[in-house]
């Protein structure tokens, strides 16, 4: 039982993650007064893509094909490090949060070079923006997590989140709030949501993440969508881990609470996307630097 439980998070992620996208889309649709897509639309999309053939640019090399595969593999591996609700991570050790963050770095590396493999100026531009913003968000993320680590006294994700209980909120609430806001901004940036990126526009010049995948199609694009969903799922759990301090130790209580929290987060994202406009690209770094500042404040606060 425990063995299966260990892999609960990857499995749950594989199952639920695309659903979050559906929730976000539905929320936006509700705000816009539309019916919107079915909630399960992302699953249909991925399924459809996986069954398709592929079209490749003559310019590309094996890098282009390796990118999506590696991206999915990385996100799934990262899922092994992330506890969910009351379920501890499959592999937990001191400092695993660093590995967790750097794994996404590896994924980004391949996403970016597979975009550049096409030789398209548009994808090059997207890649350029991606690395710019991620370079800014990484310190925010690491320092934010360091702040939480300092509050909880643990540096393993599993222990860290399981010790976020209401008492901790009472004791070091301000730090957690600051870190939480910082992490939310990072979450939005990393997952290419408004106000950093707009996943829905189809004007190449304004996009970041989507434009990097312009040339991908078929199963490759399916992998990309899936890994993007998973990434959102995983990063979301950091937020949930702080914001939902329900860690009673009872798996059957904690896990549903966490899932509920994830859905709520999806709704919140939907609300943000509906109520805000995308920032000018020039202002994004300011936002991310702001996030870093919040993280720093969270760290230095007693």
């Amino acid at each position, binding site marked *: 039982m425990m063995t299966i439980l260990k892999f609960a998070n990857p499995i749950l992620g594989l199952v639920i993650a695309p659903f979050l996208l559906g929730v976000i889309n539905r929320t936006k649709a509700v705000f816009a007064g539309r019916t919107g897509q079915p909630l399960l639309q992302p699953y249909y999309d991925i399924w459809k893509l996986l069954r398709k053939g592929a079209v*490749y640019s003559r*310019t590309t090399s094996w890098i282009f094909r390796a990118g999506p595969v590696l991206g999915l593999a990385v996100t799934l591996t990262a899922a092994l490090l992330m506890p969910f609700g009351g379920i501890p991570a499959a592999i937990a050790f001191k400092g695993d949060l660093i590995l967790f963050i750097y794994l996404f770095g590896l994924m980004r590396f391949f996403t970016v070079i597979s975009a550049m493999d096409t030789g398209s100026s548009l994808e090059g531009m997207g890649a350029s923006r991606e*690395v710019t913003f991620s370079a800014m968000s990484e310190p925010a993320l690491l320092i934010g997590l360091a702040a939480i680590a300092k509050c909880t006294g643990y540096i393993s994700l599993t222990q860290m989140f399981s010790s976020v209980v209401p008492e901790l909120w009472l004791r070091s609430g301000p730090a957690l709030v600051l870190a939480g806001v910082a992490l939310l901004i990072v979450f939005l940036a990393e997952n290419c949501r408004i106000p950093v990126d707009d996943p829905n526009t189809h004007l190449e010049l304004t996009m970041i993440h989507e434009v990097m995948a312009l040339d991908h199609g078929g199963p490759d694009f399916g992998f990309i969508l899936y890994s993007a969903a998973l990434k959102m799922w995983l990063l979301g759990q950091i937020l949930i881990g702080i914001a939902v301090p329900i860690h009673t130790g009872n798996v059957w209580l904690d896990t549903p609470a966490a899932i509920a929290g994830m859905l709520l987060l999806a709704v919140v994202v939907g609300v943000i996307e509906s109520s805000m406009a995308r920032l000018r690209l020039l202002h994004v770094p300011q936002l991310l630097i702001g996030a870093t500042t919040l993280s720093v404040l969270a760290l230095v606060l007693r």
Partner: protein
Amino acid sequence: MSLFLWGLAIIIIGGLASLFSGRKPGLATFLGSVSVVVGSVIAVVPAFKVLLTGSIESLQLNWSVPSGSFFIQIDPISALFLIPILGLTAVAAIYGAEYLWAYREKKNLGVPWFFYNLLLAGMMLVVVARNGLLFLVAWEIMSLASFFLVTFEYEKPMVRQAGWIYLIATHIGTAFLIVFFILLGRHAGSLDFDKVSEIPSSLASILFVLAVIGFGTKAGFMPFHVWLPYAHPAAPSHVSAVMSGVMIKTGVYGLVRALTLLGMPPVWWCWALIAIGAISGVLGVLFALAQHDLKRLLAYHSVENIGIITIGLGVGLLGINMNSPTLAILGFGGGLLHVINHAVFKGLLFLGAGAVLHSSGTGHIDLLGGLIKRMPVTAFTFLVGSIAISGLPPLNGFISEFLIYLGVFKNGFAGGFESIIPALVVIGSLALIGGLALACFTKAFGVIFLGEPRSNYAKQVHEVGFCMKSSMVILATLCVLLGICSPWVIKSAENVIFEITSIPLETIQTELAATSAVLMNIVIISLVLLGLTITFAVLRKLMLSTRGIRQVGTWDCGYAKPDARMQYTAASFAQPLTDLFKMFLRSLKKISPVKGIFPAQSAFHTDTSDISEKYMYQPLFSWVSSSFSRLRWLQQGRLQIYILYIALTLWILLIWKLM
């Protein structure tokens, strides 16, 4: 020790033999490279022995030079540095045999091989010397040999300038070291290191500053790094690899050695090292990002990595200061592991850059593109190196950074507010460095190897030959192995850390065992990642096997006549980041913007010169030279004035001394 001396002798004799057989390029190459490889293999045996057993081998002979003695010793610290020195130099020698072969018509190949061997011999002596004078002599032999290697293609003005700047920088750095050793010797009563003990704290701080400047100039600390971006691109690539991979590490070695001699560190040393490391790291990678020349870019990355190493040392020192073994062990462990890791991946990257240069004829990133198709091995190994240097799992670069992070996360917040600031600096700068390095290497790899060729240089390339390929493959394999075997590698550091920190060996062993267990988890994760990747790759293959795959042109938004020159260039790729940090970079931009309804031409060009060079050294130099030239009227040719000088001197002396 005798094996070490044998290796040294073989290397020196091989170099001399190569010099004297210069007219026969084949023989010279053979003698030079084989003696390096054989000598290294022989000399590395005692190094490994010392590293693993912790025993110390030493030899002391008289030397007729005043206050000098031929006192050499291999202790774990020396051994730790000897191993990458010997290893990388040997691998690069294999590479160099082929790389230099192209010059056999124009140049006497005996000369570069002689200096190459001499460089290796110098580095070997530097890390084992235990006498100040011997150290300085070895240090300068090393610097000189590398200077002559840098100016190998001295017909080119750029190369000459690079060599000159390097020579000046290293000389000025050495001046600080001279003072350092004399002051140290003055206190100890002898220039032998083993006589040093109990240095009073005020002297220790002066010595620390001298060591940081002197050794930092060689290592490439900001702002003493100015020579690096010139020297590395100018040198032949295998030499750049050695210089960047291990020679600048002798500066780190010197600093570590100095720290072991200077006793208990005050807290401001730790802060200073962390600050220097953070500044070097962040600015190094920023400047790298703004470069257009591949080897210059790599040179700035050396500054960055030296910064990371220094952060590690600073954290370790902080551990000693705060009496926190965990912090000390992980800091020094990470920093020193990064020394080895950087040697491997930076060596690899320079060799890759050399392969590109060798076959395309240019190192200008924006003229290349699409090389992966014609140079698959080079591309693959370069990719491995890029991932490693960006500090991404599962390769070796991540491991050493991870250790530093781990130390800070584990114990960095323990000391109250005072320790939070350095911890914050460490975490923030490492994270920023990581993100920027990723940007930089996706740029380098992406623009050079991917996409379409941007010029004729890139169209005519071909894969390099066996020697060059094999040495790159060796290093790439090492990148992976050092990552995968890190749980065992880190355990071998116990003697080194003991030597530096004097923490009880048991504590070190316990801490390292715990660390090793952590690293084991990382290895497992890496294997899982590998398994999943293979699984998905197979899955994808299966999915696509039954379906149609078409080859078309890249999607270009419907543009009518796409052209290879329309690809995103390195300059554009880096532009958002360089703009963001323009306060530090101060790039010169030349833009001729688009005008009119049917714009004919527009251009964008950036040029980033080094700030410390531009705003610090150049003004200083021109101030000195202008104030000197203002004094040149003193010798204006008139006999009368000259006699006047004599009369005045006489009168002044008479009045002054007989008053």
